[in-house]
């Protein structure tokens, strides 16, 4: 098996006449953390929505873990091992941490169709494992989400990825709504994922964060990829130049 975990070829999405994403060729290797940057409306979220099966692509190919894939819905993608932390966290406020981690894929003690008996104990144990693995500290996992801070909520959402041994994690602006300390905590968790060798696609507007956490930066502009930069070969000024359109890498120039 090659070390490429995700590859897209000519990935394209049109909303009616709007070409939101045009011919995106993207690769992600095992253990690699890649940032996706770009202005609002540049196609970042559209790109992610095609990969995670939230929307159906107009054209192109997605190859995940060596296999061409065609996800009908987010659950398909999740079952295949792509875990997404959505901007709107997708947590049920009135449920506790294990309930949210296992929402939609509960562990069962006794199978009986919709009335299958839940295995609370196993779910609690695996939740604690996942929290430990990601370095998330939540003193009482049986507290409901509505009683938690924004940072704790984000951590719960991220801990889901660790629970299910996903092959690829995608985070859509995980720290946009957080304070300084909470952001630091989330970044620590991302570093833990890196150490564990889990590949990550991070959408972020935070240049410092991207430079800190990622190996590579892919810049989107007006629906196209306009740069693929190794962290060591670039700096903040340079990336901004690509985002704003002042620069385009020669290999992407013909498309612009």
């Amino acid at each position: 098996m090659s070390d490429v975990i995700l590859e897209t070829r000519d990935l394209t999405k049109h909303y009616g006449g709007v070409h939101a994403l045009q011919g995106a060729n993207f690769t992600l290797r095992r253990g690699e953390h890649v940032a996706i940057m770009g202005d609002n409306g540049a196609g970042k979220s559209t790109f992610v929505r095609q990969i995670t099966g939230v929307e159906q692509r107009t054209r192109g190919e997605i190859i995940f873990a060596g296999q061409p894939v065609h996800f009908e819905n987010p659950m398909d993608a999740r079952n295949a091992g792509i875990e997404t932390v959505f901007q709107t966290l997708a947590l049920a406020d009135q449920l506790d941490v294990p309930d949210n981690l296992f929402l939609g894929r509960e562990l069962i003690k006794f199978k009986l169709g919709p009335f299958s008996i839940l295995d609370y104990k196993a779910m609690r144990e695996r939740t604690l494992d996942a929290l430990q693995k990601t370095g998330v500290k939540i003193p009482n996992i049986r507290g409901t989400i509505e009683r938690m801070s924004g940072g704790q909520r984000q951590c719960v959402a991220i801990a889901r990825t660790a629970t299910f041994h996903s092959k690829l994690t995608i985070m859509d602006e995980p720290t946009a709504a957080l304070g300084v300390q909470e952001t630091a905590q989330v970044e620590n968790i991302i570093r833990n994922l890196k150490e564990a060798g889990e590949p990550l696609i991070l959408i972020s507007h935070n240049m410092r964060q991207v430079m800190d956490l990622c190996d590579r930066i892919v810049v989107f502009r007006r629906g196209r990829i306009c740069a693929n930069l190794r962290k060591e070969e670039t700096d903040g000024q340079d990336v901004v130049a690509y985002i704003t359109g002042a620069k385009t890498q020669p290999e992407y120039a013909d498309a612009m």
Partner: protein
Amino acid sequence: MSENSHGIGGLTFDAKKRAWPNEVNVLIALLAIIAIFEILGQLLPYMGNQSLLFDFDTGRDGTILNMARLKIIILQVSITGIIAIGATQVIISGGIDLSPGSVVGLTAMVAMSFAQTALVNGNPNPKAVFGDWAMDLPVIIPVMVALGCGIAAGMINGLLIAYTRIPPFIATLGMMVTARGAAKWWSKGQPISFPTEDFGAIGNGMSGWSPVVIFIGLAVLFHLILRFTVYGKHTYAIGSNEDAARMSGIKVDRHKVLVYTIAGMLAGLSALVVSSKGLTAQAGMGVMYELDAIAMTVIGGVSLSGGRGSILGTVLGALIFGVIISGFTYLKLDAYYQEMVKGVIIVAAVVLDQWRRQRAATNA
């Protein structure tokens, strides 16, 4: 970060701030209401006979909580209580069901038609809807008919809500009006009486306790189902955050159909008990049952915005309901005051729920 720090980034999470279960509040309210009636019952006779509200000449009969009165309290809430078990699940899932009262009317009529006895005091049954073939059928047939009728009504509700995306209020309002019409059409407005002995035993058996046994049995069953099964977890999840539930791969539409179908089935069961208990079925049966049931759930701490509450709370809410009605009789108060106070209590329960949640939110 030190080893004993709590929360993330130095944020603390105080476990002691966790509110006790809401059911405890409802239980305290129940005990308080019983105490108020008890005290009033003891004091009022000694406060002179100027009151327009009370008739002291007839006197009182013992304390409010004697066995006979307790039986009356539970008996009178058990029939609407069965509906409230379904209403609880619907409301936790973020919906509302206005149809069970009418479904009770329709189901009672249909089921009673299949429970007819051939001879009444040696004469042919004068109220039979069908011919001889439907006489003296085994009791399982009207029971299955009642369950089927309730399930069908509930399933129509669920399918409408899940797949046409109309608000539950409208879908079940439609069912409420339609089912009531169908109940009247079934026997052209005539009541149907004279069921078989076996059918009568459903609501009168166990020396009159059978409605209570059925109510409590169903309450325990569905309390456990909500608490310990995937069905229960998904019901709470959908009421809590429907988008999150959908994104997590829960089949939200299918689940909603199931929730409303169960509510319909419970309405059918309630119809069985009420028609069997009265040995008759009329098209007007069950009017306002749905509102009483919703009131019980709300008093019991089930949040109308979904995701919160339990069957245990609803049962306690039903008992509060029963105690109030019974307490007014105990104090020899006019029935008019009962309804007025009932209305006030429903609104007060919702206000309390709002207030509690706002307080919880600011504390978090």
